């Protein structure tokens, strides 16, 4: 057997070798930006150098033909350099303003919508789903494709009060992250345990330790060491499933979808916030999840009409209050909206403040 090749532990590469030369030249020396139109940013450096950025949406999960097409567009229209944003949008930088419109046209002509800047709805930050995850309750790329088709107009235009960031997650671990609107699988039944497999597949003490509500305990079932779940305590979070696949939490019927709003990581105006539950029990209705799209569009429509300029979803709700949010969106308010997790009393209205 040939000698194995030792890896070169080079770590994160220096970006300057792949960076637009005008960005290298003016690194750390930018002094101004503006937003000429949806999908286009303009930046100016201390030196007087100018650069235009054109942002376009991608499907994130890209075949090499799509990637080569994006590279061709970079060479033909945009100096041969690109970068990706954290939401999988691609950005082309040009130093010649006359290149902006042909670049926009080339992107649209090849199916890449130009937009996602400033007060638009940007691409959805998402996970792997059925395509590649080992514990998915739903798909990710498909949900995102269906939703972005619905929200296409809001991506290529800037008509929202402030920027809107969305995420989807195919289980409650929420790899998609916090967002103005987050779409997350919510299981509604305890795991179904295959007791024949637990002893061989699962490290039982660590599975017991994973449960946030201490509902799992070791048990002998049919003479075999296994685990059992106190179904009255179980909150159906699915935390036991990754370390113990025989505790199947995914259910085609009972794994539902919940909608959360008001997450924000920026410090602008209010402190960063976590998103809050507003709807649940929506069906996991592949391939286009129309019920989810309806709720998302309803919330966005009310926000668009009612929020003041620069108010993010969280800022808007903070101003109008939660009762009015439920009233304006028409979403039902249930006992499940009232938190009962650790620290929950801080989320209650500890005042006589009421809006009539």
């Amino acid at each position: 057997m040939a000698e194995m090749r030792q890896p070169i532990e080079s770590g994160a590469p220096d970006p300057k070798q792949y960076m637009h030369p005008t960005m290298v030249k003016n690194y750390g020396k930018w002094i101004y930006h503006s937003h000429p139109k949806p999908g286009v940013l303009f930046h100016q450096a201390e030196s007087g150098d100018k650069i235009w950025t054109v942002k376009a949406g991608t499907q994130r999960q890209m075949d090499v033909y799509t990637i080569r097409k994006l590279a061709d567009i970079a060479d033909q229209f945009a100096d041969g350099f690109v970068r990706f944003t954290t939401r999988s949008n691609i950005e082309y930088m040009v130093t010649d303003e006359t290149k902006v419109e042909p670049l926009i046209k080339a992107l649209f002509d090849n199916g890449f919508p130009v937009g996602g800047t400033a007060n638009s709805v940007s691409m959805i930050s998402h996970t792997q789903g059925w395509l590649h995850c080992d514990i998915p309750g739903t798909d990710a790329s498909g949900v995102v494709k269906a939703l972005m088709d619905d929200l296409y107009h809001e991506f290529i235009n800037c008509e929202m009060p402030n920027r809107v960031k969305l995420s989807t997650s195919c289980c409650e671990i929420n790899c998609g992250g916090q967002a103005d609107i987050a779409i997350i699988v919510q299981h509604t039944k305890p795991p179904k345990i295959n007791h024949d497999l637990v002893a061989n597949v699962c490290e039982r003490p660590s599975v017991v330790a994973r449960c946030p509500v201490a509902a799992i305990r070791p048990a002998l079932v049919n003479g075999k060491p296994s685990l059992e779940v106190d179904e009255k305590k179980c909150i159906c979070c699915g935390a036991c499933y990754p370390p113990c696949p025989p505790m199947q939490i995914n259910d085609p019927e009972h794994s539902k979808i919940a909608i959360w709003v008001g997450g924000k990581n920026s410090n602008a105006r209010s402190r960063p916030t976590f998103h809050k539950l507003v709807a649940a029990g929506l069906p996991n209705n592949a391939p286009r999840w129309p019920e989810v799209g309806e709720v998302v569009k309803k919330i966005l429509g009310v926000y668009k009409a009612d929020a003041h300029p620069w108010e993010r979803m969280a800022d808007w709700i903070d101003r109008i209050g939660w009762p009015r949010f439920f009233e304006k969106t028409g979403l039902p308010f249930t006992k499940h909206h009232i938190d009962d997790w650790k620290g929950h009393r801080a989320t209650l209205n500890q005042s006589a403040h009421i809006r009539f």
Partner: protein
Amino acid sequence: MAKKIQATPMLDQLETGPWPSFVTGLKRLAKDNDMMVDLLGQLETSYETRKGYWKGGTVGVFGYGGGVIPRFTELKKDGKPVYPDAAEFHTLRIQPPAGMHYSSKLLRDMSDVWAKHGSGLIAFHGQSGDIMFQGITTANVQPAFDELNEMGFDMGGAGPALRTSMSCVGAARCEMSCYDEARALRTVINNNLDDMHRPALPYKFKFKFSGCPNDCVNAIQRSDMATIGTWRDNIQTNDVHAKAWVNKNGMEALVNQVVSMCPTKAISLKKIGEAAKGDGISTVAVNDTHCLEIDNHNCVRCMHCLNVLPGALLPGKDRGASILIGGKGVLKIGATMGTMVIPFMKLETDEDYEKLNELGRNVLDFFAENALEHERTGEMIDRIGLVNFLDGIGLEVDPNMIREPRNNPYFRGDDWDAEVEKWNERQAG
């Protein structure tokens, strides 16, 4: 020419509509790639049954203990994979250039490697910031990695390990940048690669680097140690840009969208000549008669006014970063936000970056020694308290670390005088 693609009536419905379709991309690959033919078959089955069919396992490259996400199909009939050419469909997590910059040549070179060894499907990028090369057999993992590694790219993190990091566009193209984000990322990550490539931590550990409090890479919610740019001195101003903005948007917009939305009421509209002067005050003329007066000592660096008035207001010149510890996702105690442990540190000189590197190493070491199995840093602090954590990494308490002091009497205070003495000494020093 690959084998025949079976009917995919469910996935076909994701080829309609204006947004780019990943299904169209999968089908394009499947024309000459049996792995993608079978991947489409399994994915269509998932859409029909609403179930996932992948399980993990152990696949890696020589010399490393992590970075490959193994996937073996569980969709079997009589013990045999229904879609044998996608029975192994692993992912390589590869660290991107900091800030996610690419030349067209680099994109083509990466595509060529993946078309040769893998499925031809690449995600730019995963939620931790990796380039995800998706779909490869166990046998091809090593040669694919070798080629990417020779191109200057290294494996990312997976499992209980230091994870691949992210930094914002920052200094490369943003006037809000308060330090060299890419340099900070590469300093901290590339000095701790052993913890990435040989997973031995209690659980995952993430660093993220945002150049200002807009926090475009979501460091506060998604990283165990967040480095977020900020500045100590006064906001810089530019009358030309401010007047142009007001000329275009009007005085009402300035009042309603800037003055009224300042969270600490640190901005006032004043007649020119009547604005306060002196330490901590910035003024910027918005027309011939009026100016904004900013009380910088009461500004919390939220970024709102800078975002609304680009160029007219800019971060000060005395720039650096705040460090926040303990951000994480849901499991197991609920999502936790990073909390302030260092209000300000300079990030200019080699020594400054070395200090950041030492801090990162210190926090990693404390985490490695004190966290329980499968416990994130935020959960550990939840369990032991912030003061014990600060003691452990050698940081002094600071009122910037809290939103408010404790509201219960349940502490043992017989060392009160000694603690007061420490505070007085630090204030005098």
